[in-house]
């Protein structure tokens, strides 16, 4: 079956350091990938997305990298802040109006 998985369940980083969260997906037909952040008691919040015709996309303090050859997606957070502490999910889909396939989620904990 299809699955999008994360390599590590938790990640602890020092405030100010860069964070890298990795994700593997299995559906070669997926052409749209998204990272979501979920804070306690809230729903998933869009962080950044990337389409399959791109390898890299940058936002404010965040960068998403896509390697279609090995079906790998990563989220880089620069200068990690306490407010970045949350569960991060990667997701993929075959179209903007199609269902998302989520990974299990990884907890990012920022040490002061």
């Amino acid at each position, binding site marked *: 079956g299809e699955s999008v998985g994360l390599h590590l369940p938790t990640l602890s980083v020092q405030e100010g350091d860069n964070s890298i969260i990795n994700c593997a997906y299995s559906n070669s037909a997926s052409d749209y990938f998204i990272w979501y952040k979920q804070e306690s008691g809230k729903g*998933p919040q869009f962080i950044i997305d990337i389409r399959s015709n791109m390898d890299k996309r940058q936002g404010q303090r965040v960068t998403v990298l896509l390697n279609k050859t090995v079906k790998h997606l990563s989220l880089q957070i620069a200068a990690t802040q306490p407010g970045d502490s949350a569960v991060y999910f990667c997701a993929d889909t075959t179209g903007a109006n199609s269902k998302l396939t989520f990974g299990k989620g990884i907890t990012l904990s920022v040490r002061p």
Partner: protein
Amino acid sequence: EAGVTQFPSHSVIEKGQTVTLRCDPISGHDNLYWYRRVMGKEIKFLLHFVKESKQDESGMPNNRFLAERTGGTYSTLKVQPAELEDSGVYFCASSVLTLTGELFFGEGSRLTVL
């Protein structure tokens, strides 16, 4: 502008009882999705409405789950009768019907079946 709202935020019921979850999408969003996260696991797709029509219900676990979207506005998800394994957080999300529609999630309805 109001976001996606869900009600109730938390429901505790006994096995065999019925629960109805409600989702009000962002006004004008034709796409409405239901997802579920069971404790410690990934968020799983349940179904997708386009306006009032079910576009994809491949994720519905069994016939104890019934989703409706009357008039293409709000949606309800009924679980009858509830089982222990139905416990989890049910998320609703909505988006506009375009090629690049961002998905907006509600805060979820936590269901606990005892």
